[in-house]
């Protein structure tokens, strides 16, 4: 019995996969969707402002919306781990899953880089052409991660360790 088969047989994995409770698999997918909306959606609005949309609106005030991104991250790490626990083979044997993680990593690094310059506390905040390009990379990577995440439902090769 390999470790994926063992993991799938543990009570927490079985519970998320098989429970009829609303908080089971559909509940985790719902939370993952809301977390995505908060994370990617808020990032998009802040990102558009950093890249030059609505220049009359003071950039530092957009920092007030940053906690929404933090909530999105927390919701999606928890729900994402629950979904991974339910079907580890399905995700870990699919290259698309690693592509998704790579895009999340790129987006996170690019986002942090922009936040350090655009919201450094220095007034007025300096947004250079380079900062805008990095922000574009961050937004592109967030949407690419959404794309890969959605494709996980269609591109998996093995649903579970003992399935053909």
């Amino acid at each position, binding site marked *: 019995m390999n470790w994926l088969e063992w993991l799938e047989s543990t009570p927490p994995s079985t519970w998320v996969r098989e429970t009829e409770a609303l908080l089971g698999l*559909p509940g985790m997918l*719902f939370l993952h969707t809301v977390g995505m909306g908060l994370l990617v959606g808020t990032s*998009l609005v802040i990102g558009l402002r950093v890249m030059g949309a609505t220049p009359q609106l003071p950039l530092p*005030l957009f920092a007030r919306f940053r906690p929404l991104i933090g909530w999105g991250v927390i919701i999606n790490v928890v729900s994402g781990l629950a979904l991974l626990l339910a079907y580890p083979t399905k995700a870990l044997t699919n290259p698309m899953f690693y592509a998704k993680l790579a895009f999340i990593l790129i987006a996170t690094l690019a986002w942090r880089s922009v936040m350090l310059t655009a919201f450094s506390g220095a007034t007025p905040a300096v947004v250079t052409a380079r900062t805008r390009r990095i922000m574009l990379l961050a937004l592109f990577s967030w949407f690419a991660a959404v794309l890969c995440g959605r494709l996980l439902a269609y591109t998996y090769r093995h649903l579970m360790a003992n399935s053909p």
Partner: protein
Amino acid sequence: MNIEALIRWILQLPVAHFVQTHSWMWATGEILHFMGLAVMFGAVVVFDLRVLGVARGLDLRQLHHYLRWGMAAFAVNALTGAMFIMTFPAQYIYNAAFELKVICLLLAGLNLACFYLFVWPRLRTLGPDDAAPAFARASAALSLTLLVCIACFGRYTAFYKFAPLGY
């Protein structure tokens, strides 16, 4: 026209056959539907939270710019959503979660109509630091609640029986 006849009529339209025989159409529709959801969340959440008092100092007329992104995303989601229904009409018509989603969508539409008829004419006269009146805040709170409900019932829709092309 009874429900079965309606479903048969939808199924004989070219959309159902085309999407069922080109599975990438379904996946592409889902990808766009989720990206549209993310854009709508960003636009609506930021605008409604400003109305509720977060980030006072942001001028609402300027912030309204982002709602246009939300409207464009809604158009994408209405089109892709229509494609899903026209491909597997029975999956949606006989589906409690989807019926709840439609009710929430209608309420959100009603709330949006009220927003542009009564709330927005008042909000656009406010200065960047002014607090929104109570009825505007109620409208924003309702809008946020319905947004989450629509996403929730949309997600649960896939769990009411057959989703032959993935959930």
